[in-house]
């Protein structure tokens, strides 16, 4: 018995294959692309079923999110309190909450639904920066409940706001606390804002936001898959996972199910182990890879975040005079990991937010590469938000790729302009045009759940560079729609060393398609984020967003 062939006609097929950029039909066999072309051309492969369900749709290669975290799925266990509208895994769009009163009102509804009892209310996504950077105090949250503990994890992921009950249960409703992460009110009691991992950990368990819940969360992992379908994503990186055995087993099992809709690329995070253990573990994991779960890649954090003032930046430093940020690994550790990874052919992605961290990566990597030369290593700088032109030139020389955080331009661009790095450097942030001009392989990302998963939105950010106040932040760094579409497909696939399998629609590749109602090349630059997504085809399997 020969395998069946399905041929899909479509309104338009944007293949991202430069040798055959457009087609009217695509043929699929065994979950792979048999070919893209006209019906007559494809008919030469023999018998086929003609499936016309996409006849009025536009097909693109399945989108590739090169930097997200599967925990985005888990967060939908909690109440969304963000400033911007956000769509949950079921497709419901939760309207953004534009004031503290609106946040309190939503939480009150939840409190009412819960009825009697003292179970906690857990929420996420709050970003007081849009309320004029005001403090959301326990007094505000006490308006929701004084009986239940209540906690909101803020959008940055680095701050938690809690009510008085939560402080009481954590033993923190007392005077005499001295900690930079726990601001105090005029009476010397904590305000309810808990900053940094240590302060957050003290209250997290009492408000149901324990980090341990997230590590191998099967429910959340399934929700993440649903979000991928809604956003046209068929492959997503889970960019920093400690990957304990139970998490790996869970991911292998679920991605192995017949109807899990996304290929997941988890990178093992460098934390709590030595460089050698990291490399050994990654080599072990690599052997467990399947088509749908690609293991054996490595992620290192070199520094912190720009808006948290923990990124390492070069002179002249932070615009508001804040001291330089923190290193999360020593230069020696970076060097050792790079050297070992080059010897064992492991792909390493390095988080560098500030330009000093980027410089350190380039310096240490250059030394490692001289010692252990390797062609086509594809080491990638992640975020790399502040890199200047000279650094992009070095990246090109060293053969590194870059995955820029274009969503930051929209979400925090105004704050970067006014507060963190000042106008000039804010305008060069996430310099997509410079990367392309200097010939550095480029991807762009959401870092979900930090910002929502949605490659068309990310592409819109890179193309328009517009902030919520209407500012165009760095007009010279805007890129074309075609370049942005490249970055969210084959560009991202290249940084993951998967461009030979995914990222374009061409013979031999996985049958991964984003199925669209609108043509992203025709909708107009300003509306790129509004491209309507019908669903995906993943490995030849059809997933409609409406049914997921």
């Amino acid at each position, binding site marked *: 018995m020969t395998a069946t062939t399905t041929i899909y006609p479509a309104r338009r097929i944007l293949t991202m294959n430069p040798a055959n950029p457009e087609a009217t039909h695509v043929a699929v066999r065994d979950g792979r692309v048999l070919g893209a072309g006209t019906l007559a051309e494809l008919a030469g492969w023999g018998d086929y079923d003609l499936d016309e369900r996409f006849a009025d749709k536009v097909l693109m290669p399945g989108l590739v999110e090169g930097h997200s975290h599967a925990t985005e799925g888990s967060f939908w266990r909690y109440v969304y309190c963000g400033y911007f509208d956000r769509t949950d895994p079921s497709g419901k769009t939760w309207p953004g909450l534009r004031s503290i009163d609106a946040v309190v009102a939503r939480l009150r509804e939840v409190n009412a639904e819960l009825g009697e009892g003292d179970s906690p209310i857990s929420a996420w996504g709050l970003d007081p920066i849009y309320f004029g950077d005001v403090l959301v105090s326990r007094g505000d949250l006490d308006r929701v409940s004084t009986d239940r503990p209540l906690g909101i994890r803020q959008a940055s992921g680095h701050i938690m706001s809690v009510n008085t009950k939560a402080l009481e249960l954590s033993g923190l409703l007392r005077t005499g606390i001295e900690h930079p992460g*726990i601001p105090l009110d005029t009476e010397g009691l904590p305000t309810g804002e808990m900053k940094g991992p240590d302060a957050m950990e003290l209250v997290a368990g009492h408000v149901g936001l324990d980090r341990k819940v997230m590590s191998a969360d099967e429910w959340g992992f399934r929700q993440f898959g649903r979000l991928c379908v809604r956003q046209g994503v068929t492959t997503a990186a889970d960019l920093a996972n400690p990957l304990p055995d139970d998490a790996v087993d869970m991911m292998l099992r679920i991605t192995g199910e017949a109807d899990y809709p996304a290929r997941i690329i988890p990178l093992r995070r460098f934390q709590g182990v030595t460089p050698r253990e990291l490399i050994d573990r990654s080599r072990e994991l690599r052997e467990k890879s399947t088509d749908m779960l690609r293991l054996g890649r490595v992620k290192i954090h070199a520094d912190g975040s720009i808006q948290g003032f923990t990124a390492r930046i070069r002179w002249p430093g932070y615009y508001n005079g804040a001291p330089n940020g923190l290193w999360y690994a020593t230069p020696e550790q970076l060097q050792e990991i790079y050297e070992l990874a080059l010897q064992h052919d492991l792909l390493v992605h390095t988080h560098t937010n500030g330009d000093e961290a980027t410089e350190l990566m380039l310096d240490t990597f250059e030394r490692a590469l001289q010692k252990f030369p390797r062609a086509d290593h594809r080491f990638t700088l992640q975020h790399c938000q502040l890199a200047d032109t000279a650094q992009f030139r070095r990246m090109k020389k060293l053969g590194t790729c870059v995955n820029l955080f274009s969503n930051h331009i929209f979400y925090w661009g105004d704050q970067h302009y006014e507060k963190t790095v000042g106008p000039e450097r804010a305008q060069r942030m996430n310099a997509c045009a410079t990367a392309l001009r200097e010939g550095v392989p480029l991807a762009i990302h959401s870092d979900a759940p930090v910002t929502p998963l949605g490659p068309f939105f990310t592409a819109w950010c890179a193309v328009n560079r517009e902030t919520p106040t209407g500012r165009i932040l760095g007009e010279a760094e805007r890129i074309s729609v075609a370049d942005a579409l490249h970055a969210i497909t084959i560009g991202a696939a290249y940084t993951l060393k998967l461009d030979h399998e995914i990222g374009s629609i061409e013979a031999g590749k996985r049958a991964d398609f984003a199925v669209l109602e609108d043509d992203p090349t025709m909708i107009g630059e300003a509306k790129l984020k509004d491209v309507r997504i019908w669903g995906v085809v993943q490995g030849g399997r059809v997933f409609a967003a409406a049914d997921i």
Partner: protein
Amino acid sequence: MAGEPQSLPVTVIGGYLGAGKTTLINHLLRHADGLRLGVLVNDFGELPIDADLIESQDDNVISITGGCMCCSYGSDLIAALRDLDQLPSPPDHLLIETSGVGLPDAIAQSVRLIPRFTIDGVIVVADTETLLKQGADTYIKDTIERQLHAADIVILNKADLTDEETRSETRRWLTGMAPDCRVLESVNAEIPLSVLLGRGLDPLFDREHGAGHIHEHATHEAAIFQVDGPVAPEALAEHLASRELNLVRTKGFVPASDGRLYTLQTVGRRWSVSPAPMQKAEGRIVCITHTPPIDAERIAGIISAVS
């Protein structure tokens, strides 16, 4: 004080990668002499504990000869401290080793969030051979500076690998960097436990005889002082912690004008005073220096000045 858990003293051990933090911890474990030390390390890494000291090991805990133990805290110091706090018989003294780029003062601040724990002191280990180079390195110099700023005691380790000129240059640089801290030179981090942790001093108070030198050693010296009349404990502690006396540690009980007895302790530049748990007829303090001899006359003068 039945029912009330005793506070657990914590020494934070910081310093850049390769300075000798692990060597110091193993040295202290080897000389714990009945003291049950707990050790929290950032990661288990390559042999955090010398193999001959290990009794057993699982994923999370290494059990060590003499009732000591070692756990790793990774990204979650608070959870590790809470776990320790819950133990039926917690250690007598806790050592927390920071990561190579960790900031010891940030660790100390977080430790203080859990009431049971008190910071005994912050020790920063530095590699005498490379400290000046690290202090000038574009990338890490401010991290090195922040680490040293946090130190009550700096151990200049691997002193044997350098010449006198490097050592004195390093000391000069260090004085500019962290003027108040005490600087101890060492080889293989071999500094006596009593000097660093102030433990094992208690029996000294029970001696029959009064003031005098009680212990002399090439690298350090301890002396007991009698404090008869009421003193101002805070003022005395602050004086004893001053750079001029160059004492590594002091510990004692002193009577105050309110008729109560107070515990007084200094660790390098750090000092603390709290009501003593027991009452004793007379006050006494033990002073330890690493630059013998102890200036007994001056200390006696200070005691009478604050009386």
